[in-house]
């Protein structure tokens, strides 16, 4: 049973979950919504999210933990040693930090019994920066945990009771914040930072080791990567009846190579074939892992490291060495959490990928995965506070707008933007990023009734020389701007966007011209003025002309001049004469509302003159 508090919760709601679950609303008021979640047994454990949508609005992602332990709310009044709230293990406690007053919990332990404590906060979007302590009953500090390398502000701790008795768990915010919430997991479970290998090929079964921040290593256990991955986690237990320690990993379609027993150093590198993922651990001082591969001249390869998003504290520094050991490329140290190296092969040959730790720190939890693939372009939602992942758009006219940034690496052609799963009925406008463009604004206008909620992943696709390239439009940077506390959103969240259709609203603009028809010769050019009127009197800004589906061989650009949309139509010389249609639109945004007003043009193409 999950209770939501807020405002305007008394309308019919749609609830999207990142995990398979049946949701039943059991109580509903304007300020309260109570739902029963029947989570499927096969639901992946770990960080999940849900989004609640109604005709009155949509929540942002609500982060939660899908766990195999039962959860309770924090009892009140537990702000002193002698009023510590008793806990029955294992348990998950949801609480809030209270400034200078710490939260106290009491557990009874036998001599030699081990207790694991783990706090989820920033992984769930909370700004809480927990500090955990285990105290004796008289207040002496027995163990303390602050940040966890790899997971940042989160705290993890494994404690062994030296004698039977009552022990106190103290939790507070490092900077004495108040009002920020946390989840405290307490029980006998592995306290893990990350796994090795971090990447597993879809459907494959691999031995997986759990890596703790204090050089603890569990396993290996056999792990079979799911065929459909929506956020996989590896689960480790000390015994089948004990609660789990959970760590995320990546499921991919690429072959995954491992550092192996030879330690993959310069003298004995691991031979790999591209594209692939390579996995290793930087566990010794001056550790340098090397992977040998063959490449052809002018190939362009992108080496992208993933570590911190999966709990590893490593900052891999990548270099490419030629056959003579000379460095031919190295990864720039930029501001991104994930280091990346883009490299154009200078000549046919065999090369070495060298992986070292940038900070010169090492340990058994310094696991890494480097994806090596051809990525002729990368598209991301502009990392700015204004870039929204959640849109409320009005029925019959509202549109979601996405400002995109493009990084090109060897491909300058056009790039198409669309949904991964189709996205439901609706139309895209300006959905082709022009050739050589490094930024673009695309629009999606749903064609559904109020109450519909789309959750889908933005994709970018292009016909590149090597074939069709399709990849996720990354939203991680944009989300980090809006929710800075959530430093590392889960990998599965990347690209996800939510569009909710709300009740219709008064339009901002209206065409004066309906269904215009024009005639244009092949190879010709035509300028067309289409008048529109402002329905909302105080809407004074200039709308934008956007282009939807256009018949092949036709090109349309447009701008607004006062209350006219000025279009320029151009027909390619090769276009066959005939009747074509072109979809254009007028996009207006005002006081948080958007409207995209479509118009279909009938274009009669005649023989070239």
């Amino acid at each position: 049973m999950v209770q939501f508090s807020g405002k305007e919760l008394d309308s019919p709601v749609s609830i999207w979950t990142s995990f398979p679950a049946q949701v039943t609303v059991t109580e509903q008021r304007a300020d309260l919504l109570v739902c029963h979640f029947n989570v499927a047994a096969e639901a992946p454990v770990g960080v999940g999210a849900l989004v609640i949508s109604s005709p009155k609005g949509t929540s942002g992602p609500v982060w939660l933990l899908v766990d195999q332990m039962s959860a309770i709310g924090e009892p009140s009044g537990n702000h002193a040693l002698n009023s510590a709230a008793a806990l029955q293990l294992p348990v998950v406690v949801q609480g809030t930090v209270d400034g200078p007053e710490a939260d106290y919990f009491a557990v009874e332990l036998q001599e030699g019994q081990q207790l694991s404590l783990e706090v989820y906060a920033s992984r769930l979007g909370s700004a809480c920066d927990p500090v955990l302590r285990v105290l004796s009953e008289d207040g002496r500090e027995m163990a303390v945990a602050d940040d966890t390398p790899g997971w940042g502000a989160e705290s993890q701790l494994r404690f062994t009771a030296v004698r039977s008795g009552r022990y106190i768990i103290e939790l507070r915010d490092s900077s004495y914040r108040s009002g920020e919430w946390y989840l405290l997991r307490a029980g006998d479970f592995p306290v893990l930072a990350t796994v090795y290998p971090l990447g597993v090929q879809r459907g494959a079964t691999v031995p997986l080791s759990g890596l703790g921040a204090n050089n603890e290593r569990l396993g290996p256990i056999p792990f079979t990567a799911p065929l459909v991955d929506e956020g996989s986690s590896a689960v480790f237990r000390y015994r089948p009846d004990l609660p789990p320690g959970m760590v995320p990993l990546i499921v991919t379609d690429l072959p995954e190579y491992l550092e192996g027993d030879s330690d993959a150093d310069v003298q004995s590198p691991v031979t790999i074939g591209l594209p692939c993922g390579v996995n290793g651990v930087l566990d010794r001082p001056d550790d340098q892992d090397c992977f040998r591969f063959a490449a052809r001249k002018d190939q362009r390869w992108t080496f992208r490291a993933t570590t911190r998003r999966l709990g590893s504290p490593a900052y891999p520094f990548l270099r490419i060495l030629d056959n003579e050991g000379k460095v031919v490329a190295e990864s720039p140290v930029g501001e991104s959490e994930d280091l990346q190296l883009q490299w154009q092969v200078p000549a046919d040959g065999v090369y070495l990928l060298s992986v070292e730790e940038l900070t010169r720190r090492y340990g058994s939890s310094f696991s890494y995965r480097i994806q090596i693939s051809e990525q002729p372009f990368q598209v991301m939602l502009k990392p700015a506070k204004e870039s929204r992942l959640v849109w409320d758009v009005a029925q019959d006219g509202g549109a979601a707008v996405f400002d995109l940034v493009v990084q090109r690496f060897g491909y300058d052609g056009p790039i198409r933007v669309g949904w991964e799963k189709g996205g439901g009925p609706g139309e895209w406008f300006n959905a082709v990023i022009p050739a050589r463009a490094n930024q673009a604004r695309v629009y999606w206008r749903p064609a559904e009734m109020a109450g519909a909620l789309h959750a889908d992943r933005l994709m970018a696709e292009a016909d590149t020389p090597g074939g069709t390239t399709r990849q996720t439009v990354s939203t991680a940077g944009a989300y980090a701007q809006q929710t800075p506390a959530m430093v590392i959103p889960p990998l599965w969240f990347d690209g996800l966007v939510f569009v909710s259709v709300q009740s219709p609203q008064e339009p901002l603009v209206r065409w004066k011209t309906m269904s215009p028809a024009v005639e244009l010769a092949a190879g010709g050019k035509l300028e067309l003025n289409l008048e529109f009127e402002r329905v909302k009197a105080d809407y004074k800004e200039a709308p934008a002309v956007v282009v939807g589906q256009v018949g092949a061989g036709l090109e349309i650009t447009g701008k607004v001049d006062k209350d006219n949309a000025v279009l320029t139509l151009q027909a390619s010389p090769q276009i066959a004469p005939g009747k074509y249609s072109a979809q254009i639109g007028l996009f207006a945004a005002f006081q948080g509302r958007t409207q995209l007003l479509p118009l279909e043009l009938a274009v009669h193409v005649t023989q070239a003159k």
Partner: protein
Amino acid sequence: MRTAGWVTTVWMLGWVAQGALAEPAFPVERLEVYPQQFSLVGPYAGVQLVVTAYGKDGRLRDVTRECGYQIDEPSIVRVERGWVSPVADGSARIVVEWEGSRAEAVIQVTQANESERVSFTYGTLVALTKHGCNSGACHGSPSGKGGFRLSLRAFDPALDQVTLIREEFGRRINPFDPEESLLLRKPTMKLPHGGGLRLTAHDPAYRLLRDWIGQGGQLDPQQQPACVRLEVFPASGRVLHLPEASQQLAVWAHFSDGSVRDVTPLASFSSSDESVAEVDERGLVVGHNRGEAAILIRYADQMETCFLTFLKEVEGFTWNDPPQYNYIDEIVDAKLKKLHFLPSELAGDEEFLRRVYLDVVGHLPSVEEVRAFLADPDPQKRSRLIDQLLERPEFARYWALRWGDILRLTVGQVGADGVYKYHRWLEQAWAQNMPYDQFARELLGAAGGTLTHPPANFYRTTADENDCVEAVAQIFLGARLQCAKCHNHPFEKWTQDNYYGMAAFFNRVKKKPAARPGELLVYVARTGEVVQPRTGRQMKPWLPGRGEIDVELVDRRQAFIDWLTAPDNPLFARVEVNRIWSYLFGRGIVDPPDDFRESNPPAHEELLEALARDFVQHGFDRKHIIRTILNSRIYQTTFRPNPWNEEDEKYFSHQQPRMLSAEQLLDAICFVTGVPEKFGPLPAGTLATHLPAPDLVKHEFLKIFGQPERQTVCACERTTESNLGMAIQFFNGPLIYEKLRDEKNRFRVLASAGHTDEEIVTELYLAALCRMPSAEELQAAMEHVAAKRKQFEDERTSIEQQLAELSRQMEAVRQGVAERVRQHKFNQVPEPLRDDLKKALDKSPDERNDIERYLVDKLGNLITVSQEEINTAITDEEKQKIKELSEQSEKLRAALPAESAYRMVALEDICWAILNTNEFLFQH
């Protein structure tokens, strides 16, 4: 042609025997002259003779300026104040004589009258340095003076060459008429000179400059031998006895071609402690007081130090063999005995208790702790207490405060979140007694996110590699390198090359923003070199004592750290034990504690060395050193001097009182008054000594009392020098005022609980001063309470009297109105009856006859006055009058002190007085 015969030079005092003399004050066993033979080559050569008289009592005395000099061949050499200069080629024998004893020196002179090239570096530049021309205050300042700029103390001969020879079209020198050169006319005041008279024609430097100019102002050839070291005679360690405690020094420069020259007249001299001894420009040291002084001698780019000890007989001094608790006492006592300082007595329990709490945990003991300690008869209780205090969590927090000062731990430097994490790491390091070498290693080798790995904040607080090397040097090597960034260090052996050579260990440390808000990522780049800005040379990493080294590691810091923390590093352990010592004594063995240099020698080299050795042998265990020091008798002596050590400020014969730090003072005030402070978001009960950073919670009181801003790593940033602002805070500042008036303060709570005034005053003394009040103090307090009671009673009585008078006046007004009304009514009675009624009313009821009783009975009520009638009849003026009187009464009633109020006022006064004593404000 030489003149045959002896020429006797009569010199100074005591030369001529005057008949029957008293027993000599210094019975001489033998006289020695140094050097006994020497060759002078060239016209500029010379030698400083040093004549030492050895007494029969084992003492020695320098008599260079007092003895007589006889030269057998005065045409060959001449002698002036022991300085022998050549006249002509040949050999001469010089006999020195003093108090009937003799010694000889043989001098060989060659090329005395041949021309010799004056070296630009070792003649011209040395001459300018000798006379201060290129000092920082004059032409050696970055902008020079009067358009004439020289390098500071000639560290940059290339610059000086340009300035002297080429600049201004070479107008500074006149080879055709050297004495007309500006370079000579100005400092000799033949022309106006802002720097005044700096040179005379008799100075050796003048001659060098003149001759250099006359020779055309030439530069040195490529193969010019370089000066590689200086040698000073006498060597360090000579002990001289006041009052006749002077010492002539002789300075020899050794050159790379094996030649040796006496450069005494051209060397620069300075004393590390002029209260002990001063030195003149010719190298004569004159002792003033007992103690030790280091004489710094500089010539060109070389430096040397000569340590001298000065003793004096102290009347009545007898060494009393105090007990020695450990090696610290043995070593300190040895020096005190030598210098004739008698150590003070052991501090009493009260004094010790207060001191050790403040030094170890930063705050005062509770009243219960004081009582328990004072009542404890165990002779080992001090050691036991020391052990307990070192294990308390407040120990770690308090010493984290000290290191927070050094590491510039502020919100401004490391961010709001970083402050807590960095401070927590420091606290944990102390709580776990992290060995100091590991501590340094973790700090200097830190990398990663500054929030996840708090020691990485060390690099967050350094702006660049220059700031980094200055911080590292000052914190871990006790060296203030800042000067060497722009030029060779004026007071130490650090050169500009050394500075940038050390920076080469740290220049690859980089920082970039991390994804986590407020965090930086510290990492090490694989490439990057340091270029010396003046010479353009790429610098190899350089270590003191080892020179330039090749480092193959990507992270060069590791090589520096390995060197720094090696057990045989001469600086690492010494700096830290000295720092700890300075915290516990208010003054370091080297003071300031982060200023180790030749010209600032330790007050006690042997002690420093022994502590450092002990520190290393115990694995850099700081708690061990603290414990050892605290357990020494020296630490536990009283602050009160005795007649045989009241002059001593540096040899630890007694403790020196020092003001409580800002944080300690605030905590102490809160503790004594029982009213704690609340510091922003921090939990209730947080002490000022536990505050992570000064800009986390800004507190005016702390600022006024010297809380540092932590803008530098210098120990000097924290100051406890008193100022007017501090005085005002204590006289009538809001902090103390409010705590004294707080309803829940200590003495009010005690009073409410039924404690007597004596008990309360006793508790205030125990809380503030860790001792019982003396009988006189208690009596004075009780008298003050009594006086306050009387004052209050008198005040109450006076006010009550005034109230009564006002009440009477108000009643008089009312009575006046009533009478008026009654008269009016009386006048309404018919005339014939009026007189009779009046007569009847004038009588008492018993005296009235029947008729009169009848009249009163029937008519009396007609003339009765009701309140309503009074209210109606009262005039505005009368109302106003009553109102005024009533208001006056209210005011007086409000000022009427409660019967027991005197007590609280008296206790406020007593508490205030205690807080304003030196005994409270100072640690002793």
